[in-house]
């Protein structure tokens, strides 16, 4: 499988989707990122990133049923494809390799 380079925010979004399993859509992805990283991503940046990753084949999306809470609008659910899993694992391996042997404050990478 061809290696797909990922940006930092792309990795964060992919990992958030993986953590959310079947319940990954705009609101929950944003919330998960905020909880886990302390960053509150701009909605526009998140949607742009999700669209770009779908174009790359890293995620797939589908529309759920409309809900009254959302004014009768559907949720767009996301799932990470095999290609996305490989890409994020590869990116994380690179980070781990770079961290190996470093003694950073608060880290356990010695």
């Amino acid at each position, binding site marked *: 499988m061809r290696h797909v380079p990922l940006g930092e925010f792309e990795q964060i979004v992919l990992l958030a989707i993986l953590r959310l399993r079947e319940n990954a*859509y*705009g*609101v929950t992805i*944003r*919330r998960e990122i905020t909880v886990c990283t302390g960053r509150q991503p*701009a*909605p*526009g*940046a998140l*949607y*742009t990133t999700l*669209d770009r990753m*779908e*174009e790359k084949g890293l995620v*797939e*999306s*589908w*529309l*759920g*049923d*409309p*809900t009254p*809470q*959302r*004014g009768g*609008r*559907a*949720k*767009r*659910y996301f*799932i990470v494809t095999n290609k996305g899993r490989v890409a994020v694992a590869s990116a994380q391996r690179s980070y781990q390799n770079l961290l190996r042997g470093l003694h950073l404050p608060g880290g356990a990478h010695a």
Partner: protein
Amino acid sequence: MRNAVSAERIIACLIGRAKAAVVVGDLLESLGEQETFAFWLSVTRIVLSLSWRPIVAFTAAVLSGYFLQRLSWHAYHPIGGIRLQGDVNRLGLTILLVALALQWGCIGRLIDTHNIAPRERTSRRRVVGSLGFLLAFGWLIANYDLLYHLGFLYRGAAFTWFLLMTRPFLSSFRDARAVASSGK
């Protein structure tokens, strides 16, 4: 008062109706009922986030076209008198055509990249597509007599330019990939 339908229409201009509905639905769900200011602030941020790249890219492409034209001016001096067949600098003409072809190809690519939302076949899209196609095709027709006197290579470059110039507009006739509408 918050008007979700208006917000949806504004965002739909950038990413299509289906995705705009999803975005506004997300905002309604996350902001609750009363936060009108926060809602419109979020809509504004989303619109800016979705639109600044194509605007900057298009402006840069147009400016680069202007500078390319200026650069090729000396190589292709009779740009204003393209019908002076004996004076046509063929090398300059080729450079100009290829540069413009690349420029229009890049614009087309940018338009495709940033408009990946579902595109329904609407009358407005057909009109825009037809006008764009005629504009490019008109250039080819208007310069037919010039091309008639040029060699195969130059005709090829001109035809490539025509194809690349029409490509962004041809997308107005087709349906882009839509978000799947059924649950998995």
